[in-house]
């Protein structure tokens, strides 16, 4: 009779990394639906190309690094990166742009650092920032949302594919339009209320479509919270920080205003960032306290860059900056171990 000789624990919880990743993928569905509804099929083609290329790059990297390809592909982390990048890029981005992005994210940001778990930066965000700096025109070319333009102007599935492949002519290019964040940033003449009234892109609390997209990501995020994929600490503190910053600096809606709390919460990539980007465990702070700080600082940075920086949306920059800071936050937010008077870091000081 031969029995296994293994050390405890013998039982294991239901969670696995692959499962976590698949849950994250599932949770992007509401957001994807909303994006597609409002901006056409461009986001889906983004995600499609990004996924295919990311898997290919991942397989290549694993092969070069002589790792079991199937085993690692199974953790779906490359797919998550692809989804996040695809969602972040302007709908219907050209294939080459996507390839550059996923190549950079998977090969450089992930595998050059040692692969899954070792990357100090969120690969999707790093790639996004690289593209934004390198190709500002393509990266700021957002389509107009349903409601601001007639539904017929939205990208259909075929149009989107052709557009991403660079085939086709102007009519199926869709109608580009500045995002509400752009408009608010460039506005220097009108009070916010007037701007709101005069600009078709604005909806109930934020941009048309954008508010719904944000709501959809919030929904997906809450699902992940419910499934305990991550804790509330980072997202909540980020959202709170943005809201507080907006309340503090919203000067009653002058022409220089950065917009109110609700506007900021439901604009751009706020919810997407709060639940899908900053919750990326690998590149964030690790302890709950650390994550509160991490999230709050990202929120503050997002608002600062939005209100006073050069870029209309700021989540990617804020996240990258805080990726740098994560190790420091970790160092100063070590929990207090049972039976100890002080957290470890202070104990040594």
């Amino acid at each position: 009779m031969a029995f296994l000789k293994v050390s405890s624990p013998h039982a294991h919880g239901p969670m696995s990394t692959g499962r976590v990743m698949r849950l994250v993928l599932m949770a992007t569905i509401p957001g994807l639906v909303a994006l597609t509804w409002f901006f056409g099929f461009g986001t889906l083609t983004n995600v499609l190309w990004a996924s295919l290329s990311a898997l290919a790059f991942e397989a290549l990297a694993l092969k070069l690094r002589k790792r079991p390809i199937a085993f690692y592909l199974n953790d779906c982390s490359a797919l998550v990166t692809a989804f996040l990048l695809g969602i972040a890029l302007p709908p219907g981005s050209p294939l080459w742009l996507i390839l550059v992005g996923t190549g950079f994210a998977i090969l450089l940001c992930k595998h050059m650092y040692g692969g899954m778990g070792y990357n100090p930066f969120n690969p999707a965000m790093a790639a996004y920032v690289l593209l934004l700096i390198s190709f500002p025109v393509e990266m700021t070319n957002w389509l107009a949302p349903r409601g601001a333009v007639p539904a017929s102007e939205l990208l259909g599935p075929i149009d989107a594919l052709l557009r991403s492949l660079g085939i086709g002519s102007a009519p199926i290019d869709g109608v580009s339009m500045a995002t509400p964040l752009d408009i608010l940033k460039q506005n220097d003449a009108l009070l916010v209320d007037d701007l709101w009234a005069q600009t078709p892109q604005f909806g109930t609390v934020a941009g048309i479509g954008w508010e719904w997209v944000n709501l959809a990501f919030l929904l997906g995020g809450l699902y992940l919270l419910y499934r305990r994929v991550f804790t509330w600490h980072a997202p909540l503190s980020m959202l709170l920080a943005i809201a507080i910053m907006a309340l503090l600096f919203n000067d009653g809606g002058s022409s220089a205003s950065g917009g109110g709390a609700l506007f900021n919460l439901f604009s751009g990539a706020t919810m997407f960032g709060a639940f899908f980007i900053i919750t990326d465990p690998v590149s964030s702070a690790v302890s709950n306290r650390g994550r509160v700080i991490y999230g709050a600082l990202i929120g503050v940075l997002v608002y600062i860059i939005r209100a006073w920086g050069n870029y209309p949306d700021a989540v990617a920059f804020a996240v990258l900056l805080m990726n740098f800071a994560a190790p420091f936050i970790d160092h100063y937010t070590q929990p207090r171990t049972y039976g100890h008077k002080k957290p470890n870091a202070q104990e040594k000081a």
Partner: protein
Amino acid sequence: MRKIWDIHGGIHPPENKTQSLQDNIRAAGIPAQLIVPLSQHIGAPAAPIVNVGDRVLKGQMIGEAKGFVSAPVHAPSSGTVAAIEPRVIPHPSGMSAPCVVINCDGKDEWISHQGISDYRSLDKNTLVDTIRNAGIAGMGGAGFPSSVKLSGGKDKPIETLILNGTECEPYITADDILMQERAAEIIAGAEILRHIVEPNETLIGVEDNKPEALAAMRAAAEGTGIEVVSFPTKYPSGGEKQLIQILTGKEVPSGGLPADIGIVCQNIGSARAIYRAVCHGEPLISRVTTVTGEACSTPRNYDVLIGTPVQYLLDLSHFDASRCIRLIMGGPMMGYTLQDTAVPIVKTSNCVLAPTVEELPPPPPAQACIRCGMCAEACPVSLLPQQMYWFSRAQEHDKLEEHNLADCIECGACSYVCPSNIPLVQYYRASKAEIRQAQQDKIKAERSKERFEARQARIEREAAEKEAKRKARLEAAKAKQQSATKDGSKDDIIQAAIARSKAKKSGGADNPPQDPAQAAIARAQAARSGDAVSETAEEKTARLEKQLASTEKRLAAAQQKLQLAIDNNDDNVEAFRSGVEKTEGKLQALRKELDAHRASQAPAPAESVSDDPAAAAIARAQAKRAGGAETESPDAARERLTTQIASTEKRLDAAQQKHADAQAQGDVNAAAFATAVEKTQAKLDKLRAELAALPAAEPEPAAEASNADDPAAQAIARALAARNANAELSEADKARNAVSSLEKRIAKTQQKLDQAQADGDDNAAILSDTLAKLQGKLDEARQALDALSQEEG
């Protein structure tokens, strides 16, 4: 409702407890053979007190506790001792340890035993002794001797007595069913504990997933003032520290004991065992053990005799080996796998878990850590398991200690939740072992450094003392010289003697003195003035030989140590090697010196034989006296030997202590310490023999004249007497009388001077003045005598 606190983290694994709770506790019966390990507890193993072939009765002590933290073991049933030998015991490593194997006769015949009817009338120490003698050790898992917890730490009053009925591990129901069925006995045990500990409050903590046990316990505790506290189920609430936190909100300081914060914690199983021991006189020879898992078709709890082989229980439970790939002693979270079903149930065995492959599948391969932090969230001790995992992989022990690895209770919650299936606890165990090893190595290194430094200091001190002595002697000689000069006496003999002695010291050949007697006196004087430094040739040979022998011995020891170090892969190999080399170098130098010395001595250093036999006699006497400093008196020898023996005894004690420590810790140097003990013992024996060889009670040489102590003076006297005898006695009685009386006075004075010099007395100078004067007179008298003899001749 009592306030309860929450612990950080924790998990909710599937409980799987109902399977084994279908039935009541059942007696497992008496197996054909019982294997009773001598160590079933934390602390020193018990020592067997029965022999192979002995018939033992149920409850008879078969192994007695060795030391304070230890517990005795008893025969669980009657039968014959078949063997006392190492058997595989329940241990994560699958190791073997000494066991008493009993072939049961099936009669289950008790040894006569008796409970204490009114324990309240008894002294607490007696009760603790009763508990100790019953061999009760923590039955919840760790097996810490219960009596130790009860007897220690009287410096701090115990506020809270906690009985642990949490049983948070999945599958295990031994405590649950015990509380359901033996609540009254548990409460009775709690009362005994209360009587011993005298706490302000007594709490019994039970998770709320055991409603029946709670009800039974509450009913039994009714009116006793013992509070049964229920709290939400969560793993690992049953950890001692966790339970304390839940019930009191206090935390046991890191590295401390519950007693430090006024708490004593006992398992409810132990409480019941204490009741059986005190009120019925029954030692701990059986326990309730859960046998469960889907590979057992009849999972249930058994009342099992300690020493029952696991196989016996599995058979009772209709175990299907083909469906089971791992057999676990304990629960699925903290239990360890068994390789051998022959291992016995021991005092701490609360569960035998035989899961099917589907039930607890083998762990999938680990993936990369995604730093998700789920482990940190699950950790009941608020550690950062993922950080510790990185540091553990990188073997960064400093960082691990900084992250409080030592506080990890190895509960497995972190591994359980880790989505990447990383066997975190395994890493921590390995790192803990490494750190422990490193610390032991460090202690070892420090100890040898201390030893080295102590030796160095001793050598330096001795050198300094020698130097000081030498200086003192020089000073004394100078002082004497000065005082002699001051005295202004011409032809001062002492001065001359000193001068000669100096000359001799500086290697100049001694001019044959005109007057042999005078020369003898001078030499004697010189010898007396403490020229012990310039040793004679024989002395030197002896010394060198001695040194050579001891160096050889040291070399042998050093080589032995080196070999040991090499065998053990010790880090100190280099140090040992250089030690050996140094000793070898020294040995060679000594050999050379000895050879050279022997060569130079080859022509026997016959001192220019004086024509005058008297002078020769004097010389011999003088030599003897000088030698006397070396050949010690029996008294001195006894004194020296006694102090040596005392110090050797001390050293032997220390060596034995070290040896015992090393053995207890399983130190690799235990063997080295053992040889050290042997050597010291041998030396001690030798010294004792020497002491015994000395004349029993040295009679004071009272028979000898008061001046007999001074052989030189005696010799002088005899020599002079002989000479006088030679030189026609009839002449010059007066002169001779004068000479002899002077001689006597000189002798006395010399004696006094000796004494004074030895004591460093201030009178030495005065005495030496007196002596010089006397010598002068003697000289005159002798001259007169000579003149007379010449006249006669």
